């Protein structure tokens, strides 16, 4: 099911997962039921995913996150937006990220 991404909204990590940084890897461990498909699954993020994840911290709107990333990466806004929306879509579907009030 596709989630609607709103750049003016604030998103942050869900309380349904525990996020750990171990030996340079971000490891997302499901806490409550229904996050993973199997009982022994964990999740890691690729390099881009890690950087995006660290900025989706529930403190500012998604649009501001994208602007910062575009500056840091010296990349076109459109490309950054595509990546951020892509990862957010995936994390929202997995209930690892939630929309904050």
């Amino acid at each position, binding site marked *: 099911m596709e989630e609607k991404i709103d750049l003016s909204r604030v998103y942050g990590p869900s309380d349904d997962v525990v996020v750990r940084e171990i*030996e340079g890897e971000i490891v997302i*461990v499901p806490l*409550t039921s229904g996050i993973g*498909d199997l009982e022994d699954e964990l999740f*890691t993020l690729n390099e881009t*995913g890690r950087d995006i994840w660290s900025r989706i911290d529930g403190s500012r709107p998604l649009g501001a996150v994208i602007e910062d990333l575009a500056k840091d990466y010296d990349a076109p806004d459109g490309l950054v937006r595509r990546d951020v929306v892509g*990862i957010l879509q995936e994390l929202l579907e997995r209930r690892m990220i939630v929309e904050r009030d």
Partner: protein
Amino acid sequence: MSAISYVRKVVAGEAGLWKSSKPILARLDIELTDRCNNNCLHCSVNLPAGDVEARASEWTAARWKTLLDEAAGLGCLVVRLTGGEPLLRADFEEIYLHARRLGLRVMLFTNATLVTPRLARVLRDVPPLEAVEVSVYGLTEKSCEAVTRARGSFAACRRGLGLLGENGVAFTVKGAVLPPTRGEADGLEAWAASLPGRTGSTSFATLFDLRSRHGDGKSALIAGLRMGGDEFVDFSRRRGEGAVDEWRDFCGRSGGARGDRLFTCLPAGASAAVDPYGRLQHCLGLRHPDAVYDLAAGSLREAVTGFLPRLRGTRASDPAYRERCGRCFLKGLCEQCPAKSWAEHGTLDTPVEYFCGIAHAQAVAAGLLDRGEKAWTVRDGSKRAKGRIGSWRKRSI
């Protein structure tokens, strides 16, 4: 920036999780208590559920929680909670939830007799991320309670399994081959396969440890319950020759003899164990005084980075070990290790005849040895084993 797939699913423990360095500690095994509400014939651990002295000496939930914090800080991903019967502890839920909130996966070993509706709901809502491992000691009330020597344990176990199943908590069933349950293996497997929530295949405990940790004379009883080599082979063959083929292949792939090395079971840093009183060990079975680190007087980090590596570097001094185990090419089959040596002899490096006999029976069945031949007398035994990987089996005589 460019990304197509951002989130990668990994099976926990997958080596590919770590790109460069691995965590200092991958898994921590915790015996929350030696006490158990069963009194199984073959158990090397259990003390009575009401043992006041044991209970008073056990670490509190607060201490376990601090240790779990330390373990998570060292990168630990998995904690095994076992006993005795860990659910005897009134604070089990508190310890369990603390581990899960730290992002640890929990392997729970239990006899399921103390699973309550509340605990089943907790395990449903905050799943352990590992199938609960349930020891089931018989297909019938008579056989089960002949093993557990606890009236009502059969019904209680089934009630607990039912609660796990109703709540969608994944579990595996483990049996034990003992005189009262001989001949029940096929039936237990079929019954377990029919249970809602059951996952994986049913395994069976067959080669029991002696009870050196308590020194109460029960070891003689346990020794009398153990299978001999041929019986073990026959049991393993009950589903065909697959197990024997695996032994042959495994032996061929397990490298050369041990030499004077004692610890050959795990890579350094992979895991550690802690007894109910806060003493860290290389594994749950090894309580030799020279192989125990008191966490109350140190730290988990020091134990894992200093004490255990030093311990794992220990070399054998027993001439019999060096002559036999040190030259034996059946390393991949034999259960000889410091924990077994300690359980049988109180030492770290004495050959254990029982496990030696089992490994030799396996090797005969796998066509790696002739009956009566001793593996340590075989020149180029590793080459023999490697040469027979995937080969047609030689029938035992």
